[in-house]
């Protein structure tokens, strides 16, 4: 049985990792290399690297950046931002990525999804969908950082993308982005009901208790977040410890497992006595990662 997955979404803008709030405010965090090193060490299952500057500057993927970051990435790496052709995909994969994520380019030309799937396999083609709830309650597809509306619901576009050859759907809620309110479960349900390929839920995680409902209630195969992973030590290990506690089957290989620990309402570890802290085993310096 496949494990459910935890994915760290790293947003890169002008070469720096940023936190995104509502698709229009960006808080710079730091250099992407260190973020990748940390989450890889902390048991993350995959990384999605999204180069936000590519679309804004009308350029293709930053191959030098991908090549540099892939040196520190020992889990599958998906790259998005500026991927508009099979040649882009070939370059991105040569630079160290395993899959690509396409968004606005696929909306403008859905045949791109088919071309990628035929050249590299459907597992390589991730279609990223940004959805926002309209006044009438429908989840409409937007592109260009939420500025351009498309006459499609998220579920309709996901089904079309699957038919075109997509291997996965990365589903983000513009309303929940940076809100810390948790996933838009209705949105995830609508999309998982419309497709049979894996759906990755994203947008709105404010504490580690927000991950499990994306899978248990929404039907997603993987849960992703960006902002929450940036300001906490062992962030992705803690997220997985919480998922396991909530009954979701995820991989947790770290020796720091937090199996018998409790969390506060913000998903932070509750303070414990000194002996318990001393008993927590951390990976030794001789370990391979």
């Amino acid at each position: 049985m496949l494990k459910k997955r935890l994915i760290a979404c790293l947003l890169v803008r002008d070469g720096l990792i940023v936190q995104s709030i509502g698709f229009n405010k960006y808080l710079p965090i730091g250099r992407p290399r260190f973020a990748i090193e940390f989450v890889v060490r902390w048991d993350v299952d995959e990384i999605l690297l999204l180069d936000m500057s590519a679309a804004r500057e009308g350029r293709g993927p930053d191959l030098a950046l991908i090549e540099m970051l892939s040196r520190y990435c020992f889990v599958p790496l998906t790259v998005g931002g500026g991927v508009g052709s099979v040649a882009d995909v070939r370059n991105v994969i040569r630079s160290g990525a395993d899959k690509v994520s396409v968004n606005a380019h696929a909306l403008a030309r859905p045949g791109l999804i088919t071309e990628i799937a035929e050249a590299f396999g459907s597992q390589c083609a991730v279609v990223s969908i940004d959805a926002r709830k309209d006044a009438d309650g429908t989840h409409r597809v937007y592109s260009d950082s939420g500025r351009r509306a498309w006459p499609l619901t998220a579920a309709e576009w996901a089904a079309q993308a699957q038919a075109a050859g997509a291997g996965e759907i990365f589903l983000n809620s513009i309303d929940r982005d940076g809100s810390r309110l948790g996933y838009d479960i209705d949105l995830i349900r609508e999309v998982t009901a419309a497709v049979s390929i894996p759906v990755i839920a994203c947008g709105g995680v404010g504490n580690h208790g927000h991950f499990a409902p994306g899978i248990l209630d929404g039907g997603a195969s993987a849960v992703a977040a960006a902002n929450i992973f940036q300001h906490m030590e062992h962030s992705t290990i803690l997220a997985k410890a919480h998922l396991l506690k909530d009954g979701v089957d995820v991989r947790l290989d770290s020796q720091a497992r937090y199996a018998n620990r409790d969390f506060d309402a913000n998903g932070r570890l509750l303070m414990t006595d000194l002996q318990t802290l001393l008993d927590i085993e951390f990976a030794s310096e001789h370990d391979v990662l």
Partner: protein
Amino acid sequence: MIGIIDYGMGNIQSVRNALERAGTSARIVLQGAELAECDGLVLPGVGAFGQAMANLTAAGMVRAIANRVADGTPLLGICLGLQLLAEGSEEHGWHPGLGLVPGRVRRMRVAPGSHLPHVGWNEARRTPVDDAGLFEGVPDPSSFYFVHSYALDCDPGVVIATTDYDGPVTAAIRFGSVFATQFHPERSQTNGLRILRNFVAHVAARCAHA
């Protein structure tokens, strides 16, 4: 020196990065003649079986790999690299393989509602077969990253680990000095890097004896 065989299929760079992190420098080899300078070989690969064999043949690799394996040079196949070691594959018609490991590659049979490719993290469980230390230090079972639609059907005496995807699936094999994993150790975090480190140690130990 470990040589990574580059025949134009898949992500060679990530294998090289992981071998470096596992403690060795690796060179990328493009022609069969270069294999003579390598103490150990890695055969990676992502893509279609028939195209891979055509590329290996064009690069003079088929006989060169067989010669080195006959010498006892350790080889590690990864993903498509595992499948290429077999007698052949039924992927898009029958294609003969390198024939270094007895067995045939067949399309995986999955239950209705299950998907191919089998992609994601899945648990691999050791068998009693001697792995010559490839899984040393790796907890059993452990999860690894898989991406494949075809799998090796072979003598259980060769299989050192299996996974489960609507039935048992060959996850890792050992046949003499030939090792291979269906999963991607270079993308399987700590336990993947441990496997690569163990292979590197196996190559180093053999060199020390020589």
